């Protein structure tokens, strides 16, 4: 083996978390290499020009909670990251009306008032409460989960800090926080609002990436994410990446390289090599070996523990916990190239609304029915869709006058009855186009190209086990010190020198980057300790 294959740190998987991890480690002076299976980095945050002239954010399409500290530390703006505002959400309704939420407060209020004067008021009260709660909970995004059962000194400090942060909450706020952790999004929103399209659209954030319906308990928590994003509002970490979500990954890769990290694409890691319970390197599928004392997995927990390692090397309870970890895919993605701007019958013509999102979520029943279709191994005939048209705000995504449309779809079962095949994929794509055409009459005739991704495609093409977009559902029993498994939620694993940094770790899920960064900080901490001679 050549000396050039010797590194201080090897990162398995060049998703945005792996890249962030590598950038931080390289910045600290480690000789670092990222090994990515595909021909490009980014994982679920990639831009690909599948049809000439049309750029798709193939999987993820908006930047939601990308940590401002990462943008600052890695100087991502200088490395090409620009985030453009995503200002409105329109819910078209079957009766030809719509419900709109806009960047401007008065505009939103007027729109809500049309549907329910009470809701227009409640919306502001709700926002104030949620903002307060999000502010109380947000520090979680920046800390390593403590081990509450056998807490070390630092764990105690963390718990104390969290306690102090939450101490300012009054009774109502505290109760709300507890409800958010336990209730369904639909039930929680029922306590606040009466307008069905409003409740349905808000509850949709709680079902994204889960195999759950809006009435399933545990879906309320994700409502907080939106308001965590508000806190970073002016910082503008929420929106469209100019050039598509791949630019998030590209800018991180560029920053990592500037710190000396090496990035290899077309490099599939077969296994992590270990000796005496310690990681020593990795072997690629072509037999090439690379050595390092630190190996970091940026892939999902199933692959990390059941694929890259031999389960024999792991404690049985961990293997069991990972097997039970809920990672059932439920989402699909349809990307369209359009010859002209889509025309929504509820808001005809071009206008600022086309720069925002469209949510096909006219009622809670509609969403719950969409879930019913998939529950028993199918896909929704009339699915929930979250739609954006990135070329409207970033005209570089398509040739002049043409457009790209990104449609995130739920639900589609991973283990669909009879298995996914080309015919089913196209039928799924048709269900999406048919449903959307009811709201966008010119859609069908303006489609130049169509890319359909089923959960199986996401597994095969993007490397997401069972097609789960978050490397595991973001439900309370899979968050914080449960993510991915109690006692191993601090980015370490039972194999010394082997770490995890993907979305399957805290806080996980979304183009947020916190997992990659926090894991890097833990690794550097261990290395400092080791140097000082402590275990």
């Amino acid at each position, binding site marked *: 083996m050549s000396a050039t294959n010797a590194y201080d740190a090897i990162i398995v998987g060049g998703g945005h978390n792996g890249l962030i991890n590598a950038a931080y480690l390289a910045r600290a002076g480690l000789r670092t290499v990222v090994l990515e299976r595909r021909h490009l980095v980014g994982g679920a945050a990639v831009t690909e020009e599948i049809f000439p002239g049309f750029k798709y954010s193939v999987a993820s399409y908006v930047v939601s909670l990308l940590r*401002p500290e990462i*943008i*600052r530390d890695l100087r*991502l*703006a*200088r490395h090409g990251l*620009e*985030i*453009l*505002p995503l*200002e409105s959400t329109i819910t078209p309704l079957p009766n030809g009306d719509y419900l709109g939420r*806009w*960047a*401007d407060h*008065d*505009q939103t209020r007027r729109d809500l008032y049309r549907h329910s004067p009470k809701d227009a008021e409640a919306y502001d009260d709700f926002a104030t409460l949620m903002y307060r709660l999000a*502010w109380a909970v*947000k520090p979680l995004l920046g800390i390593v989960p403590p081990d509450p059962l056998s807490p070390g000194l630092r764990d105690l400090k963390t718990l104390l800090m969290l306690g102090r942060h939450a101490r*300012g909450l009054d009774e109502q706020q505290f109760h709300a926080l507890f409800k958010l952790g336990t209730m369904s999004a639909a039930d929680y929103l029922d306590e606040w609002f009466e307008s069905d399209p409003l409740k349905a659209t808000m509850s949709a954030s709680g079902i994204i990436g889960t195999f759950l319906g809006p009435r399933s308990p545990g879906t309320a928590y994700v409502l907080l994410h939106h308001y965590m994003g508000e*806190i*970073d509002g*002016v*910082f*503008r970490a929420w929106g469209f990446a*100019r050039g598509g979500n791949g630019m998030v990954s590209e800018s991180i890769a560029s920053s990592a390289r500037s710190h000396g990290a090496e990035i290899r694409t077309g490099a599939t890691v077969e296994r992590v090599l270990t000796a005496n319970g310690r990681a020593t390197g990795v072997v690629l599928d072509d037999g090439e070996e690379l050595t390092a004392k630190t190996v970091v997995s940026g892939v999902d927990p199933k692959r990390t523990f059941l694929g890259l390692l031999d389960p024999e090397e792991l404690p049985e309870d961990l293997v069991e916990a990972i097997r039970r970890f809920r990672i059932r895919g439920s989402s699909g993605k349809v990307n369209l190239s359009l010859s002209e701007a889509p025309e929504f019958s509820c808001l005809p013509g*071009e206008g*600022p609304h086309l*720069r925002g999102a469209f949510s096909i979520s006219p009622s809670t029943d509609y969403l719950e029915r969409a879930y019913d279709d998939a529950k028993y191994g199918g896909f929704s005939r009339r699915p929930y869709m979250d739609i954006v048209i990135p070329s*409207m*705000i*970033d*005209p*570089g995504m398509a040739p*002049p*006058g043409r457009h790209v449309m990104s449609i995130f779809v739920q639900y589609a079962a991973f283990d669909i009855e009879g298995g996914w095949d080309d015919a089913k994929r196209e039928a799924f794509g048709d269900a999406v186009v048919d449903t959307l055409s009811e709201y966008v009459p010119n859609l069908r005739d303006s489609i130049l190209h169509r890319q359909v991704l089923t959960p199986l495609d996401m597994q095969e093409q993007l490397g997401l086990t069972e097609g789960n977009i978050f490397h595991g559902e973001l439900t309370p029993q899979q968050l914080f010190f449960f993510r991915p498994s109690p006692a191993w939620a601090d980015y370490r694993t039972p194999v010394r020198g082997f770490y995890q940094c993907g979305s399957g770790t805290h806080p996980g899920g979304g183009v947020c980057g916190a997992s990659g960064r926090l894991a890097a900080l833990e690794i550097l901490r261990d290395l400092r300790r080791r140097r000082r001679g402590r275990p």
Partner: protein
Amino acid sequence: MPAPSAVRGTPFHERTGPLCQAGNWRRWAGHLSASSYEPTHEHEYQAIRSAAALIDVSPLHKYRLSGPGAATLANRIVTRDVDRQEIGQVYYTPWCDAAGKVRDDGTLHRLGASDFRLTSAEPTLKWLHENARGLDVEIEEETEQVAALALQGPRSRELLERITDGDVAGLPYFRVMSARIAGIAAEISRTGYTGDLGYEIWVGAADAIPLWDALTAAGAPFGLAPAGMLALDMARLEAGLLLVDVDFVPAHRAIIEDRKSSPYELGLGWTVSLEASNFVGRAALRAERARPPAWRFRGIVLDWESLEAAYAAVGLPPQLPGTTLRDSVPLYAGGRQVGYATSRGWSPTLKTYLGLAHLEAESAAVGTELEIEVTVEHRRRRGRATVAKTPFFDPERKRATP
């Protein structure tokens, strides 16, 4: 005779008026100028940086200098060397009073050997006449007669190419040419106030509406949006460009001496050509150059962590300004006030809190650590800031000719 109206629309008002959904107008030299067209200005700012934006800059004062003495007059006024200005070249330049203090800044377009257009923020007709004594020069105010649109942003070139017969791609940075845009006679200059790729288009007021219509029609596929002053103010801060009455006081409006600044004190030393023919203020500036200036004009970057800490102390996340702040705040070094920041704001593109500041020369070296006053919940606190070079944002496309 009825009393004159305090404000009037620009030649584009017939179009900009209905577009201004925000109802958010301000005054600019007696004209209505949109602060933002949409209810919030964020998209307008992004159009400047990532697509293309149309900004009505008609209220600028504009003067045409022509005749045998035109070059001599221009040379008497501006600090730059007009003898070296080529036909078709545009100078950004300040001009000074006899004491070498800046009265105003603007652009000088050399349209012919003896044909210039001067743009200014302040009315300048009288100053031009005063300095034209003995010269054979015609001075014509064309503020109302000439309408001006800034077309700025990375896609502006592609867009303009579609509707003009002029060689836009061949037009270098700070050059001007005559061309037809959709059949309308215009001057197109590769200038602007955004620090980005962009053009300013000068046409007769009667052609304003057809020009607007032609640009907006051609601009739709490029994401063209009308942008107001709030968006422009953010862009010019990132570009480190001075704003009169905010970052400096025109010398002839200063009531006390302390309010006046020389070009050296405004970071405009590069525009002063002391070898040039005798412009107003040259002797004073020559003397000033012999000794280093007491003040410097610099960029500052506010430190995020200290800002976060200042807000965390009262239980809040950092509150960032959504627009460029124009109130002056003190800057300290070594416990002593050493200057003041005149423009401050959050740059969405750079993800940095920026400012423009006047600093005593000893505290003005790039990298100097400062403290800045920040008001958090009605209480004055200090945040950290560092002296930085301007422009903060300087993309290659600004100057590049393909």
